[in-house]
């Protein structure tokens, strides 16, 4: 994948570029807003990661300009401004996702994956999801593992559906709150963990191979590995 990173903090940028290159992405990086816009407008990227506060030109103006030219490349905004208002402003301005600093690299990767996959999966209408011996029928809303039916609450169903749609990808707690519960807020306790552990007890407990795993310092992953 070709990734453009516009980020003025050298350390954060170096860390980002290194991390992305380790994941086999081709990365272009610039510290300056104007150079960033030039690259964004002239080159073809699969995803752009743009900081909001930049020298030369601010990130939001870059995004608006890029969008105005009809460029639909997924854009992930990376910013220290993390208020709901700021996020709304960023997303309305043309960003596809918003990540607040400090961010965990795993979360960044997870969000990038989600953005890239969204572009491709939206085209095809899926009616069922599968992972190992776990099956989910989206029409009849029936979940089975190893042919055995599993009873899920509506919210548990949505939680599992999101995890299955992002199977083999790390999913963070914030992503789950935003996508499954649809609220932007800061839970004071590990309330998401409780829901995950309930889901885990339903889908994994009686089976040999656990599918839902915790990724330390990041979130969860639904994986058959």
């Amino acid at each position, binding site marked *: 994948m070709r990734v453009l990173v516009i980020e003025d903090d050298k350390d954060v940028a170096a860390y980002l570029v290194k991390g992305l290159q380790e994941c086999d992405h081709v990365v272009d990086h610039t510290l300056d807003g104007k150079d960033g816009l030039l690259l964004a407008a002239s080159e073809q990227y699969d995803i752009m990661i743009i900081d909001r506060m930049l020298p030369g030109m601010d990130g939001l103006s870059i995004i608006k300009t890029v969008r105005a030219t009809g460029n639909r490349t997924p854009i992930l905004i990376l910013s220290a401004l993390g208020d709901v208002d700021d996020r709304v402003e960023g997303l309305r301005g043309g960003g596809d996702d918003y990540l607040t600093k*400090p961010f965990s690299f795993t979360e960044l990767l997870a969000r990038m994956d989600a953005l890239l996959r969204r572009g491709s999966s939206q085209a095809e209408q899926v009616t069922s999801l599968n992972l190992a011996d776990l099956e989910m029928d989206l029409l009849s809303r029936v979940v089975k593992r190893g042919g055995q039916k599993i009873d899920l609450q509506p919210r548990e169903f949505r939680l599992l559906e999101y995890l299955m749609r992002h199977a083999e990808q790390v999913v963070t707690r914030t992503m789950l709150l935003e996508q499954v519960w649809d609220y932007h807020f800061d839970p004071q306790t590990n*309330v998401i963990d*409780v829901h995950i552990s309930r889901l885990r007890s339903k889908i994994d407990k009686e089976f040999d191979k656990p599918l839902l795993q915790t990724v330390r*310092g990041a979130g969860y992953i639904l994986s058959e590995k």
Partner: protein
Amino acid sequence: MADQTDETIEAEIVGLAEQYSRQGVNGLISVIRERVARDPNGKSLYLFTARDYIKLAGNLDEWPDSAQVQDGWVNFQLDEQVGWEGNDHVARARIFVVQGGLGLLVGRDVHDLMVVKRLIERAINWGMGITLALALIGGIMMSRSTAKRIEVINQISRKIMDGNLALRIPGRGTGDDFDQLAENLNQMLDRIVQLMDGIRHVSDNIAHDLRTPLTRLRNQLESALISAEKEEDREQISTAVAEADKLLSTFNALLRIARLETGGKVAKPEALDLSQLMCDAVELYEALAEDKNQTMTMNIQSGVTTLGDKDLLFQVMSNLIDNAIKYTPEGGKISLQLIESEEGVCFEVADSGIGIPEDEKDKVFQRFYRVAKSRSLPGNGLGLSLVLAVIAMHKGEINLANANPGLKVSVKLPKSEL
């Protein structure tokens, strides 16, 4: 004016007295006759009488009724009988008793004077009346326009207090006291806005300048976590990551409260189904309560709506429910209620937990304040500060009461206006 008349009379008397001392009674008589003859219709009155009021000289025929022959001043009516034309002629005179019962009256017809005096009095009265009437009308008009302008200032300042800081008080361009007041208030507002922008700017900069190094710190810990081989190291590093996250969430909460408090009003109010919001919050936290064997009872009226910020109100509900679960021991009870009444919307979270001592009820809304009994439990002491900031911004009220045992938190929100 009466003084002037008296002076004229005195002067004439002085003149006559001179004649009298020089030429005696006959001299006086001839002088009086001469004076009368010289000015028959004059304003001067003379009457010189012998004993028994027999006229010796003068232009009055009779001694006035009211006057005795005695030294002193007298006022009397001049009527036609006295040989004068016109009615109500008033005269003032001085009477002398000259030697041996002879009487001398020297006076002046003050009728014209009285007329003038009356005219002046009437003019003064009318003048006063008109002036008073004009003053009254003017006063009413002035006070009306004053009241109107004060009302304008009041209305606008209320709107400004409601958070519309861009409003300014209009002047009329007359440069009067009100314009100056408006100008001063506007300048004060400009200054406040400037200061608030400054604070906002500073907090943005803090956010940027502090979060960036924290990002680096977290990043480094994260790479260390990935490359760490020993399970022991991984354990330690992930604890450090969790600590950094906690630090950041405290810091973010502080910034958020500061933003909410300086913002003053809901940025983008939307119509909300509070019943749905509360059900979602309950659903999210129910699992947590079940893990602590707590029973959660609910009485949520359906279709309760208000105007506000969805995420912030959800934060309020989840903070309150989270507190109730956290501060209630295993097996405790938590009850939730949402009702709509005439006064507005009210939601309550009651628990059977450790409660808050009476004298600490106000303090728990302060940043970082934690009730002594709760210090051993996790938390940063910012949850209720955030709740208060959000409620204030929605023009609501929050009240803490004893549930014996436990705590009952009631939040009232206005029906659907902001």
